[in-house]
């Protein structure tokens, strides 16, 4: 859940940066999407987990040389890594969706005297949300599936627990199938939820009865 929230934030910031007039912001956002879409997820997770431990350790040593080692909680490292990855995909989705908002609606908002911020919040976000929803649902699914990667850095999530259970019971197939079924259940719920949201987003477009 924490990474879902972070991912939406990364995605929105990225999209805003790509569409902004500032060349520097555009360059940074482009680099962000290229880097995180071009490298394996597992690599990013490992890099952030081990890398941030070293970075933080040396940072703390600047202030207090007696500190030998700072341990980064795997939960936050994993959450951050996955949010960064899926956020880079979401950036592209949101960018496409913002471009899909009709210029007419924005001009109408200008004509009504809404400020830039008001236009963004009241006009652009609701309209782009509807366009972005189907692919955003896919991102949520890949987010759920990517959480399985965190088991590699030893967080007590589903897959990690299953590995431990395997070690005690000696029945790996049963354990991993159960994990698979749980993931399948979660993704089914998300799919249904997104379908419901899509229907809700289209509710004003349905013909009156």
């Amino acid at each position: 859940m924490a990474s879902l929230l972070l991912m939406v934030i990364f995605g929105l910031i990225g999209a805003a940066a790509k569409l902004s007039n500032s060349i520097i912001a555009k360059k940074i956002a482009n680099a962000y999407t290229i880097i995180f879409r071009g490298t394996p997820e597992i690599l990013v997770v490992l890099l952030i987990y081990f890398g941030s431990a070293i970075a933080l350790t040396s940072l703390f040593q600047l202030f207090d040389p007696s500190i030998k080692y700072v341990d980064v909680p795997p939960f936050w490292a994993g959450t951050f890594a996955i949010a960064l990855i899926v956020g880079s995909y979401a950036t592209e989705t949101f960018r496409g969706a913002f471009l899909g908002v009709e210029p007419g609606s924005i001009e109408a908002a200008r004509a009504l005297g809404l400020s830039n911020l008001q236009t963004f919040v009241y006009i652009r976000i609701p309209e782009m949300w509807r366009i972005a929803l189907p692919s955003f649902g896919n991102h949520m699914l890949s987010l759920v599936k990517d959480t399985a990667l965190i088991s590699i850095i030893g967080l007590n999530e589903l897959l990690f627990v299953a590995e431990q259970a395997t070690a005690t019971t000696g029945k790996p197939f049963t354990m991993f199938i159960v994990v698979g079924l749980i993931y399948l259940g979660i993704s089914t719920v998300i799919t249904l939820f997104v379908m419901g949201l899509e229907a809700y987003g289209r509710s004003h477009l349905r013909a009156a009865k």
Partner: protein
Amino acid sequence: MSFDISLILDSLPKMLSGIGLTFQLLILSGVLGLLLAFVLLLMRLTEKWYFSVPAQVFIYVFRGTPILVQIFIIYYGLPQFEAIRESIFWPILREPFGCAILALTLNTGAYVSEILRGAVLAVDRGLLEAGSALGLSRSQRFIYITSPLAIRLGIPPYSNDVISLLKSTALASTITIFDMMGIARTIVAETYAPYEIFISLAIIYMIFTFFIQKGFGYFENFMSRHIKK
């Protein structure tokens, strides 16, 4: 914290020696996955429920679970059964390489068959009607009208899938395969220099992604040469 350039230069050749394995994983499972996807597509396009329902269930299951879980089920899970250990498939399933190929093939097959289905359904109905008006049979229409158009429409999403397959091959390192990722993890465990190693590996993967994208871009241009202005 210092950035050790000589360490990168030392470990680059070691990591690059894993390229062969990464490519074997990518190409073998890519080709097998494409075949599987095609079979699944044909199963879904028939109107017979006993073909289309199993294909749908297969796609649903493999798209709904993480690839890492699938790899673990196949590598650690399957040997739980006596029958599998005695079957003729055991020589393949005993090796981590065979397991990785199998898992990646099944996974990418499920995704690609959805891409193909989307492309086939996107072909203009009018063209098919024109085909049948000209007296072409069902299979002739599929081969001469649907396929060429669907291939062109399917290229952009398919290239995305090949890239995500490339990234999935890195997961094979979790079942003791020494592809580039596996070698990099060993080096990091020895030297404890995650920045140098992982970042240079990330750049290697990005270069591959770039070439895959370019390659598919040319192929797409080639396939749509008749609609160019």
